[in-house]
């Protein structure tokens, strides 16, 4: 059962070939890659190529670097960026103007270009604080257009439409062939780095943000910083490609870095498969080489780009994962069986010093949506250790309360204290850092990742006293959490392979891996059949036995009365009962809230008023 490989939908999520226990040996895959890359570089440097072929290859290599930048920002992080050509241009113009007008060394100009691209890219990424989706698209387009306008019109500095000729290559690579070799080398290095990026902490954070932003936040990921980082890396790579591009053609002009080029980059990324640098290379190669073979297309102005436009639509509709996305599945199946990982340790949860002080204090909490008082001055406390339930009929404000507690809504009034610390205004990821874990009613897992990766993200939450930076320790903790919910054997499988009930368990494991002091469970029994509910009850009791404080919302009263020692009841946004479960569930007010009021004198005679109350 353990170690059996399964097809992973997204090739960018490939887990490393070497198991964590054997760290001394160099990863075999990377070694093979290094050899292959060195061979390619050598071929590029020595095989005699015509000037024309040289140009094509240099263009392909430098473009591919920029397209790999899109792999990071769009493929990994899911953020739309239609200004990639602008950053490409920034790198190109830094090198061009620097070497020609400034007489500076090529490498210095390149580094300046990179710096400029990163800063502007981060600034663009900063706009994601307020915006996403089509707003973000518009901001990036605007940025692109402004840059084109500047390049075309700021003639004293940029030379305007005339462009910058006679760009000098670095002395060491002045020859065409060796320059091509340089480009190939840089491409190889960039490709390797981005290939491994998904499995780094930042890469995982980006994928989590792409898959499910809300869940990423409550798991402790700083969503905003992650997006800014994605933009910065993406534009860094575009600038790098652009700088090398300037050296390859030795002439640049504004129309090479227009919005149309951004679309070309985007199409290359989509065609090859936006999730992986392999896709980027495939897409770039195809879209540069094919038109060369079909050169007649370029003779009719517009035909070439018209086909591009049509291709974009067709790819998006029929082949959203691109060529590599499609092939990647097949490659996945060929991977060797991995050796079985060591058996998982018992999951440890540190609950801090024992204390009689309450774990959670909610005071006068209110949340109003316009005129609607969804939560109206609700107060309750949750004692340390054990399970406390928050219940009430539909529309009573329980879910809103939970959303306020986990930071997804900011309260209209009142305070929330966690173990004495005021967390009322903290963002979701800071609350995770403070020790609040949470699951969602409609299961928010990161669907492109395996069960293990989902849980590792939980383990990575900041300020986790049992957490670690070490990959092996993180994985060990994640496996322990999965073992606790009984799914250790299937850790490597993608989420799509698990039943609904098991997905629920993985979500719980993800929260547990973060070693929370307070766990918020939002309708954990929703959608489960009776045997799954029984298993859940047992699991919850085991969690409580480890000293974990749990606040649970659910409609299933059987579950609630079985696991919760205390219960708070809401109705119409107000607290109507609070106390020991068995007592509260017998209170008339509570029963009325669920089954209906005693009929007061009503106008219509056909209303039956003689139904006996409980």
């Amino acid at each position: 059962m353990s170690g059996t490989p399964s097809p992973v939908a997204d090739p960018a999520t490939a887990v490393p070939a070497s198991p964590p226990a054997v760290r001394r040996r160099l990863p075999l895959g990377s070694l093979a890659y290094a050899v292959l890359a060195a061979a390619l570089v050598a071929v590029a440097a020595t095989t005699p190529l015509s000037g024309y072929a040289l140009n094509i290859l240099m263009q392909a290599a430098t473009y591919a670097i920029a397209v790999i930048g899109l792999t990071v920002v769009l493929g990994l992080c899911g953020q739309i960026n239609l200004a990639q050509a602008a950053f490409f241009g920034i790198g190109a113009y830094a090198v061009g103007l620097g070497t020609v007008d400034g007489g500076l060394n090529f490498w210095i100009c390149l580094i300046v270009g990179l710096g400029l691209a990163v800063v502007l890219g981060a600034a663009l990424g900063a706009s994601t604080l307020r915006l996403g989706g089509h707003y973000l698209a518009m901001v990036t387009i605007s940025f692109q257009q402004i840059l084109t306008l500047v390049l075309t019109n700021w003639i004293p500095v940029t030379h305007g439409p005339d462009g910058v000729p006679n760009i000098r290559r670095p002395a060491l690579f002045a020859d065409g062939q060796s320059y091509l070799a340089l480009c190939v080398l840089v491409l190889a290095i960039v490709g390797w780095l981005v290939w491994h990026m998904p499995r780094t902490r930042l890469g995982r954070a980006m994928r989590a943000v792409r898959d499910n932003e809300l869940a990423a936040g409550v798991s402790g990921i700083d969503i905003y910083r992650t997006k800014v980082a994605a933009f910065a890396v993406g534009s860094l790579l575009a600038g790098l490609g652009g700088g090398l591009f300037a050296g390859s053609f030795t002439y640049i002009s504004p129309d090479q870095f227009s919005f149309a080029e951004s679309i070309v980059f985007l199409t290359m990324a989509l065609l090859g498969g936006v999730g992986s640098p392999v896709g980027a290379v495939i897409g770039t190669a195809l879209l540069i080489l094919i038109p060369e073979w079909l050169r007649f297309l370029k003779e009719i102005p517009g035909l070439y780009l018209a086909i591009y436009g049509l291709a974009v639509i067709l790819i998006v509709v029929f082949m959203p994962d691109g060529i590599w996305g499609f092939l990647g599945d097949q490659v996945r199946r060929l991977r060797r069986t991995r050796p079985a990982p060591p058996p998982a340790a018992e999951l440890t949860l540190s609950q801090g010093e024992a204390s009689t002080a309450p774990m959670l204090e909610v005071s006068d909490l209110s949340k109003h949506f316009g005129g609607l008082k969804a939560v109206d001055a609700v107060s309750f406390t949750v004692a340390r250790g054990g399970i406390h339930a928050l219940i009430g009929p539909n529309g009573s404000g329980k879910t809103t309360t939970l959303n306020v507690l986990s930071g997804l809504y900011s309260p209209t009034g009142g305070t929330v204290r966690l173990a004495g610390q005021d967390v009322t205004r903290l963002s979701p990821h800071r609350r995770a850092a403070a020790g609040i874990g949470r699951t969602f009613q409609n299961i928010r897992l990161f669907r492109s990742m395996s069960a293990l990766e989902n849980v590792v993200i939980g383990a990575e939450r900041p300020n986790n006293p049992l957490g670690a930076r070490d990959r092996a320790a993180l994985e060990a903790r994640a496996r322990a959490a999965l073992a606790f919910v009984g799914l250790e054997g299937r850790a490597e499988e993608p989420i799509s392979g698990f039943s609904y009930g098991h997905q629920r368990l993985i979500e719980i494991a993800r929260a547990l891996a973060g070693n929370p002091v307070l766990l918020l469970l939002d309708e954990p029994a929703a959608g489960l059949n009776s045997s799954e509910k029984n298993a859940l009850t047992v699991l919850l009791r085991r969690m409580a036995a480890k000293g974990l404080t749990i606040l649970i919302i659910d409609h299933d009263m059987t579950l609630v009365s079985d696991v919760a020692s205390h219960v708070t009841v809401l109705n119409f946004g107000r607290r109507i009962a609070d106390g020991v479960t068995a007592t509260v569930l017998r209170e008339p007010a509570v029963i009325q809230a669920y089954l209906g009021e005693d009929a007061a004198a009503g106008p219509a005679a056909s209303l039956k008023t003689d139904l006996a109350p409980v």
Partner: protein
Amino acid sequence: MMPAATPPLLEIRDLVVRYGEIEAVRGLSFSVGAGEVVTLLGSNGAGKSTTLKAISGLVRPAAGTILLEGKPLEGLKPEAIVRLGVAHVPEGRRVFPGLTVRENIMLGASNRSGLGKRALRDEVEAMFDLFPDIRRFGDALGWTLSGGQLQMVALARGLMAKPRILLLDEPSLGLAPVIVQAVFAIIAEVRRRGTTVLLVEQNARMGLSVADRGYVLETGRLVLSGDPESLWANDEIRSAYLGGRAKAEVLAAG
């Protein structure tokens, strides 16, 4: 009050509805006779709203049949089903916020063809006779209304379709008790005028107060049925809402 010889107006047989992997309705069978008011009860997640959505075409059943006077409805689009005479007043009212009360009610007749402008206007005015409390809000925009007013508008809009059967989803949801009384008084009047109603309610007392028959659902299955008095007196209805029913199962499983 169940018509013995004539076939039921609405018949549900072995209905199964899935959301992805979750089975929200697991093999449900029941019927509604012409002129009856039937109430579906059950706690949240029992599958009541899903059943209504399957009837009105918002969701497609995975299995089973839905017959309106013998005519199968499964697979038809909502626009077609409402034309056949099934009006669905969904959970949460969903009054169009940017249109006035009059405009909302007017659009309720969208399933009927051949209605002239003047006739339509007259029908809307006549509808206000049944809902006098909202007449003065005729030109108010949807988003300015309170929950109770919205429920009235939604009901009026549903009735404009001159439906063979009216599906009412949780009319009491989020409303204060005194408003709920008013709403159910209107439902009682609708019933008196002979409209067939399939009512879904969490509030068992109100739901049964206007019903000829009731069914209780739990996790997608029918667990109880009968006339309102016997249902209400039945202890099991309390278990279905407040737990305890399956407790024996849990204890037995260990």
